């Protein structure tokens, strides 16, 4: 066999092929865990529904007095609300904010947690001690009440602000777990070998430490998303965040309209609750597969 034949097949020229192969392998690994794959499918369904779906399901703005609390029909599969508006349409259009914000919060909080956590563990000394203390204090502050108070002070009508605020508020927990993880990886023999081989700090962080934390980071990311969703829905439900099209708003409306007292309004309150629960479930399930995908022991190709 010639040396040529043994070259790793990763030439940059084939990048479309590589991307396709990557997706294929991703799906294959994803489907390894049944629950995880189910979660992944539901997640994709929600993503499609709130993006592509909005093109097919028209947004209803007009009230229809004749259809108040109308039970499901073929035209309105989830029935109608207290104003006679189609519930399905509201579900389809009310998810986008939540999804975007959850993703954004997941990304920002993971970024903060991972960078502060790894730096803290790798630099150590006073920097580490200071951040750790700060995190400890931070963790003692009850988060949701603080958020509620802040929401009344700052006008949180912009999703990015909200995501930033949520991320900043939740940095401490993630910071601590990432820091602990990096500390344990730092002690491993292969890191020491890399030090002896003088491969440099950047190589050690990005090539030796991070790849072994990916599953961990992915899990943290999903946790960040789920808690962001609860926080946002909570805020919206309390009316502290002035959003209009939103599952949280739907629950709020259903609640204030006394939905729990009417048998007919069951669809109105259950639809957004189910959507939120299902979406959260899909994330939690999906994280199981993510865990496996990033576990190098299973990445045998």
């Amino acid at each position: 066999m010639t040396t040529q034949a043994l070259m790793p097949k990763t030439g940059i020229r084939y990048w479309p092929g590589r991307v396709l192969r990557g997706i294929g392998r991703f799906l294959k690994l994803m489907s390894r865990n049944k629950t995880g794959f189910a979660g992944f499918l539901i997640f994709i369904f929600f993503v499609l529904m709130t993006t592509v779906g909005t093109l097919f399901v028209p947004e209803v703005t007009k009230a229809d007095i004749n259809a108040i609390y109308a039970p499901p029909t073929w035209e309105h599969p989830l029935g109608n609300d207290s104003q006679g508006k189609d519930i399905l349409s509201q579900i389809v259009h009310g998810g986008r904010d939540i999804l975007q914000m959850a993703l954004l919060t997941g990304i920002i909080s993971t970024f903060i947690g991972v960078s502060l956590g790894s730096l803290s563990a790798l630099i150590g000394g006073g920097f580490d001690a200071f951040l750790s203390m700060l995190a400890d204090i931070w963790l003692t502050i009850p988060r949701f009440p603080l958020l509620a108070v802040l929401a009344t002070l700052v006008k949180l009508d912009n999703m990015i602000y909200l995501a930033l605020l949520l991320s900043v508020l939740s940095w401490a927990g993630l910071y601590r777990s990432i820091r602990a993880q990096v500390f344990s990886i730092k002690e491993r023999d292969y890191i020491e070998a890399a030090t002896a081989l003088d491969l440099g700090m950047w190589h050690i962080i990005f090539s030796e430490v991070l790849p072994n934390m990916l599953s961990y980071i992915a899990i943290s990311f999903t946790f960040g998303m789920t808690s962001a969703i609860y926080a946002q829905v909570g805020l919206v439900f309390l009316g502290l965040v002035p959003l209009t099209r939103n599952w949280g708003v739907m629950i709020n409306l259903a609640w204030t309209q006394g939905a729990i007292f009417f048998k007919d309004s069951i669809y109105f309150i259950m639809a957004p609750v189910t959507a939120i629960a299902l979406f959260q479930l899909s994330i939690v399930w999906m994280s199981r597969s993510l865990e496996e995908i990033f576990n190098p022991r299973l990445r045998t190709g």
Partner: protein
Amino acid sequence: MNAGSGEYLIEARNLVRMFGARRERVTAVDDVSFGIRQGEVVCLVGESGCGKTTTGKMITGLLKPTSGQVFYAGKSVWTPRGDKGEDFKTYRLGVQIIHQDPYASLNPSHTIYKILSTPLLHHKFVANTYEALDRVIELLNIVGLSPVEDFLYKYPHQLSGGQRQRVSVARALTVNPRVIVADEAVSMVDVSIRVGLLNMMADLKRNLGVTYLFITHDLAVAKFFAWEGRIAVMYVGSIVEFASTPQLINDPLHPYSKALLAAVPEADPELTRSKKRVELRSQDIPSLLALPSGCRFHPRCPYFEPGLCDVKRPELLPVGENRYVACHIAAREAGAPT
């Protein structure tokens, strides 16, 4: 004293390493000195916790000595202020380490090719990936992992313990080290595989002139690997005897070496049954937090002489050519100058 002796490729002089703070402070390595010549094997043996790994890491430069010096090729590795010496980079690549645990010493995220090519490319030992591949193949052949195509793109978890240790050796060889510190490199590998690994490492000495600091708690392995070299026996942080392997194995002088050799069971029923044992006065290994006065071995030593051994700490003294012992009684009997 800023120059090492020209005799040794790597030399430890009065190495001390402490851990912990205040009342928990322990001296894990206490005044250890030895030198290894180019192409020689020096074996460090002793029981768990006696400071072998700590010494090995100081020799590799992964741990800074609390005091004392390491010399590489005659030059001091650390400056008097404890910074990296001028030739640190040469030293850093010149001394590599092989760890004990085959399951922890390779990054599970990388293929064997990646593990071996990274240092080659990083230090520009090769110009491009094609050259890197050539060199990786060469290295895999050197450590006996052939056919190479079965290994190149495997992940560490797809290899057996013995094969992983071979990859670790190959990874150390990427930077053409002159010294390899092998810390219990074969302890976790099965007997049936162990000899092959040891023979491969011995071939590196023969063919590439690699110098070894070989750390083990297994005297049989020490004897086999360092038969032409020397063995240093450590006891709670210090070297108590240092001699050529055949001398040490067949005629140990220090009571602790004698006890160790007498205690090892032998893989030969008649031999092991007929072995003379050394009765120790106590079985307790002293805690580093409460070290005995005088000779650290005195509470256990069958040759203990009150008024001498428990009062005065014996130094590592030369007794005969290339032979050192740290024991009042043994030194006296060997007629060492005191």
